[in-house]
Every structure is written in C-alpha cells, then in structure tokens.
C-alpha cells in the first residue's frame, strides 16, 4: 500500500511539476489540435448525463458539451478520448493535464473557482440537492430524517450541504460515504442507509437505472443551489473562452430557433443574430481559433440546448425531468438559460 501512496504522491507532484512546460510552450487549443483529439473527463456512468452505451460510446447532456467543443474544433463531434474518474479525483486529474476539460455535473462554487486552479466555463444544468428514500419508509419530508443514516458521495458539494442542512435544522445523521457512486447505490439498495442524497437530477438519473424505480421517491425539499457546468484549468483564458462560447452558442441557437434539422435553411436567414451565430457574418469563430461557421457543425451534429436537454434528460426519457417552468428553461420562459449576445 505504501507503493500506492508514493505513486499517488508522485503523480500529484509530477502533475504540478510538469505542467509549466506545456502551459508556457503551448496553449490548450493548439495542443488539442496537434493531438488530434479532445481529452474530456466525465464521471462514473450516470444515465442522461454521461452514460456509457453497450457499444462503448458515451452520451448525455454533459457529454454533449464535450462533443460540441470537439465539433467546433475538428468539425467532428467524436474526436474525443474520455476519462471516466470518480468525483473525488476529478480536479486533480484535470490539474494534472490528463484532461483538457471536464463536463460531469460539477457545481460552480467560490472555493473551486478561486482556490483550486480551475475556471468554470458556464452552466449547462441548474440543479439543487435533494434526498431519495424508499417509498415504503413512509418518509415524506426531509425534516423527518433526524437520526437517519444517509449515503453520500465524498468529494462533492453534496456532503458539505448535507452537513450544513442537518446542523442548521438541529438534526443528527450518520453519513455512509464512498467515492464510488456504484458502491454507494449498492449500499442504499441493500438498505445500508435510509436515504441517498445528491443533486436532484442525479437522484432521478440513478433511480432510472434501479430494478424498480417506482419503489423510490425524491423528497420535495431542495436544500442547495447546484449550478452544474464544464470546467477547465485556470491560466488559459482563450481555452476557457472557447468552451464558454460553444455552450452559449448552444443556448443562443435555441433562443433563435435554429435546430439540427433547420440549420442549413437558416444559413439563408436575414436575421443578423442568426447570421453572426452561424458565421455567415462577422469573424467570431476565427477570433476564438476555430472556423467561422463552427456553430453550423455543432448544431448539425448535436442540435441546440433544448434538443440536447430533451434527448437526454427530458420528459420523454427514463430520467424524465420536466423543463418548462424550471430554472433550465430559457430566460424568456422564466428560466435561467441566458446566452450572452453573439456579437
């Protein structure tokens, strides 16, 4: 075991030691282009967000953010190598340069943004933390959980909110922790804890893969704000900009009514906003180091934000998270999805 330790330590040290050279020598975008593929970090397979198909392909609303970036750079959404690691090591792995970006239900917080050498490139899902309990427990509110044993992933905002919430409400709890979500879910299903806590989308996603999803209920309370989005290493502003504006492009396209199906037709649109988004006018793409019409490829391959959402987590998927009336609706529909102007 001491071998494991020293390898870990060496890896941590070497990651940080070695980084200066690549950073100074070459920007991330240039590296990605030269390498010929994007290194995208996702978590352990999670339905709807980063799901691993039987044929070994990744899909999901978070995976689509990476695929959009790949499409923007290479004109091909699948020039990607995926790194699937646990939540607990996600930032170390990104910092070490094993991945160029991560897109894996990661909450944007002050400490992460300012102290961990990371930059958040935006939000692709607004979420909040909740609790999942077996229906037959008869529990109907989070406030009935005083004294409960709660399963929680380590290295997450979830475990911090859990502690805060119980403390604020003068309740006690026993955590059952693991860094591996599969072990935790197994423990929960085996009755090793009374409740499983996570982002509510994560609860819905996990539950969709249970043997009997209807036997479990998500309690109504939402105990935190979890804005989830893609993350890059701090120190390469151009790379952060690219990821941010690909994400804005997806959201903007929905606002402008551009979809995978009509993007070719829209190339002839008179709307100046659409013209700029699709690179018919202006030089936004070039300014970011990709083709001017990068959003055309992205939209053809992935569709706009709304299409992404409905395909992976929307009401007609097993995860079934309705969008209308939630924070994930467009701003003009009362939600928080709001792309900065493409001009």
């Amino acid at each position: 075991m001491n071998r494991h330790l020293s390898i870990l330590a060496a890896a941590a040290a070497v990651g940080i030691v070695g980084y200066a050279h690549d950073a100074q020598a070459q920007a991330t975008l240039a590296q990605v282009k030269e390498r010929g593929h994007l290194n995208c970090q996702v978590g352990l397979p999670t339905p709807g967000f980063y799901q691993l198909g039987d044929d070994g392909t990744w899909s999901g609303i978070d995976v689509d953010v990476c695929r959009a970036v790949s499409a923007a750079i290479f004109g091909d959404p699948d020039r990607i190598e995926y790194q699937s690691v646990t939540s607990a090591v996600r930032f170390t792995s990104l910092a070490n340069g094993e991945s160029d970006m991560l897109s894996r239900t990661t909450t944007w917080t002050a400490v992460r943004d300012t102290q961990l050498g990371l930059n958040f490139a935006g939000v692709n899902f607004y979420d909040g933390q909740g609790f999942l309990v077996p229906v037959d427990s008869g529990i109907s509110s989070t406030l009935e959980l005083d004294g409960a044993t709660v399963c929680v992933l380590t290295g997450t905002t979830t475990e911090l909110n859990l502690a805060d919430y119980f403390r604020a409400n003068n309740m006690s709890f026993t955590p059952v922790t693991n860094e591996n979500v599969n072990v935790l879910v197994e423990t929960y299903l085996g009755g090793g804890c009374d409740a499983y806590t996570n982002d509510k989308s994560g609860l819905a996603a996990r539950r969709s893969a249970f043997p009997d999803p209807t036997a479990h209920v998500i309690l109504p309370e939402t105990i935190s704000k979890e804005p989830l989005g893609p993350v890059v290493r701090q120190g390469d502003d151009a790379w952060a900009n690219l990821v941010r504006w690909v994400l804005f492009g997806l959201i903007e396209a929905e606002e402008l009514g551009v979809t995978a199906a009509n993007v070719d037709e829209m190339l002839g649109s008179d709307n100046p906003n659409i013209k700029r988004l699709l690179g018919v006018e202006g030089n936004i793409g070039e300014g970011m180091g990709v083709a001017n019409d990068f959003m055309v490829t992205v939209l053809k391959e992935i569709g706009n934000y709304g299409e992404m959402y409905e395909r992976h987590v929307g009401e007609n998927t097993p995860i079934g998270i309705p969008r209308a009336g939630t924070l994930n609706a467009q701003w003009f529909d009362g939600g928080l999805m709001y792309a900065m102007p493409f001009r």
Partner: protein
Amino acid sequence: MAITRDQKRPSAAPIWSFLNDATFRSIVYQLVTAASIILFFWWVIGNTTANMAQRNMSAGFDFLNVSAGFGISFTLIPYREGDSYLRVFQVGIANTLLVAIISIIFATVLGLFVGLARLSSNWLIRTLARSYVEVLRNTPLLLQIIAWFFGVFNLLPRPRDSIVWLDVFALNNRGFYMPAPLPEAGFNAVLLTLALAIVAAVYIRIWAKRRQDATGQIFPSLSVGAGLVFGLPLVVFLALGQPLSWEIPELRGFNFQGGLSVPPSFCALVIALSVYTSCFIAEIVRSGIQSVSRGQTEAAKSLNIKPNWTMRLIVLPQALRVIVPPLISQYLNVTKNSSLAIAIGFPDLVSVWMNTSLNQSGRAIPIVAMTMAFYCAASLFVSLLMNAYNRRILLKER
C-alpha cells in the same frame, strides 16, 4: 610504505595522476551525488511553487484552521461538522491506528492458533490450517475486504430486525452496537489500584528473579502478579459498590442510539485485515518453532524439565528470535494495508484526508506531504522497535 609507493610511481607523475586515487574519487562521487540530489529538489520545489502560483493554487498550510464542513461516518475522537481540517487529519490518524491496533491483536491471536495447528500431529487439523493459509494468503486483500463488506455486512438485517444478544449487543446492516461504560464517582480509585497492582507485580517479578539468581529458590511471581493485577482492583471495585454503569444501545427512530458502535465498513475492514494477516503470522510462527532443533526439547526432557518450562524457558526464547522481526514488519503492513479502507468508505487517514480533504480544499502538496509524513513516522517507529529488539536478543557469545 612511502618507499614502496615511491618505487611504484615515478616521481614525475602526470598532473592527472590524482584521478587514480581511490579516496579522491570517492569524495568526488559523493559530492556529485549530493549536488545532484540538492539540485533535483531545488528544481522540483522551485518549479512546483512557480506552477502553483501561476495557477492560483495555494501550497501553504493555512487551510488547516479552515472548517472542513463534511460529516465523517465514524470518529474515534470527537468531531463535529464545523471542525477544522487539522481535526480531520487527527480523526484520520486515530481511525487508522484504531483499525491497525485491533486488527493486529486479532491477527496475532488467530495467526498463533493457525501456526500451531500447522504443526499439529492430527492430519485433519494440519490440512485445514494449511488450506486456510494457502487460500487466504493468495486472494487479493482488496477483494477480501469488498467480499466481507458486500457479502456479509451489507446483507445483515435492517435495524428493525437486528440480531440482538443478551439484550445489550445488536448487529444490523448499519453496524455493531454495544454498551458503553459510564464511570461513576469512585471509579478512579479502581483505576489507581490497578496501576499500583501493576507496579507491585513488576517489582515482585524483579525481586523473585534476583532471589532465584542468588539462592536458586523459585517464587511463583507470574501467578502472584496476575492475582494482584486482577484481584486487587476487583476487591476495590466491589468494596466501593460497583461505581460503573453501562449505557445500553436502544432502538429509537431509524436505528440504535446510545452505547458504542462501529459501522459495517469497520467490521469488514478489521475482519479482512486480521484474517489476511493471520496467514502470514501463522507461517512466521510455524517457521519460528520449527527453527528450534528437536534436540533441545529432547535434552530438556532427559534433564526432567517440566514440559511447560521447556516451552517457556527453552523453545520460546529461541523461537521468538526468529519470529519477532518478521512479525513486526507484518504489523507495519497491517497499518499500511488499512488504507484499502477507502474502497468500502471507512474513514481512515487516506480516505478522509488524502481523498476527501484533498478534493474539498485542493491543497494537494501539503496534504500528500502530511500523509506521507505519518506513514513514514510509523515505519521509522517500527524499525526503531525492531532494532532495539534485535540488539537485546543478539546472541551473547560466552
């Protein structure tokens, strides 16, 4: 000497002849090695600090007073969610040491039995012991830990259907629950008596040995000592009206409350570690005993020395010389292997510090350094013990 050298070397030696001087060369080698090591560390430290500064990552230890903010599923020493990262580090160390110490005790007892069984004259016992060792020693420890966790403890009944013994012990899939002692006024007197009794027993032992050396008279210091250590405190305890009560765990709400408890991950970890390590200890015990030649026992027998004296005074002291050093390194292995706890979520040092705290605070360098310092200190402490022991048992040639 000087003359011979002069004869060998022409006085007009070439200017580089010093290169042939062994002492000179070795000094140069050492200087070069030392310089490269220093340069290497200088480079690593400089580069790391520069990189971390460039990326806004803090390398300092200032985060240690910051509140960690997460719950820990099992803590030997008190911990609340608002406590600092430094406290988390201490909790991790305490948990690691607890697992290690308990596993070491179990593994030693189990290993001793299995080791003796390996030498049994009974074929069945011998073969069973041998299969135990061969099978368990050759299965990866991580696998065993996970098997105990999911295959045994996670399958136990839920709290409502707990297995209860004697109305005070309970076992369910949330843990093992036992009564907690609650000392009352006067209990300190019992503890004081115990301490005094131990001192007295040690003193008697020394006195008995001196007397035996001088006069040859034997005093049963072991049994008298044991009687003192167990009997005296018991008498005081009873005389004071049993100043100790127990807090019994009770099923309330979701689970048992009160008393002492350990989570399933702890049980799985301790059992797996003890069983796995006991195989190695069994082999150490067996080889230790076999290393004492039969002739010694036979000689003792022919001198009509009592069999248990033969064991205690002749075989054991010689066997221990072979047993103790590898045994101690097994103990160190237990401490290091306990870091596999992370797989089943037991909050040992690696899990709670190198994993959770590192991820939450992002302070990779100080956290990794502190973890390595702990394991390094543990190793050094053990090798110190080992050296002291080896020096003590060094064969004294007369």
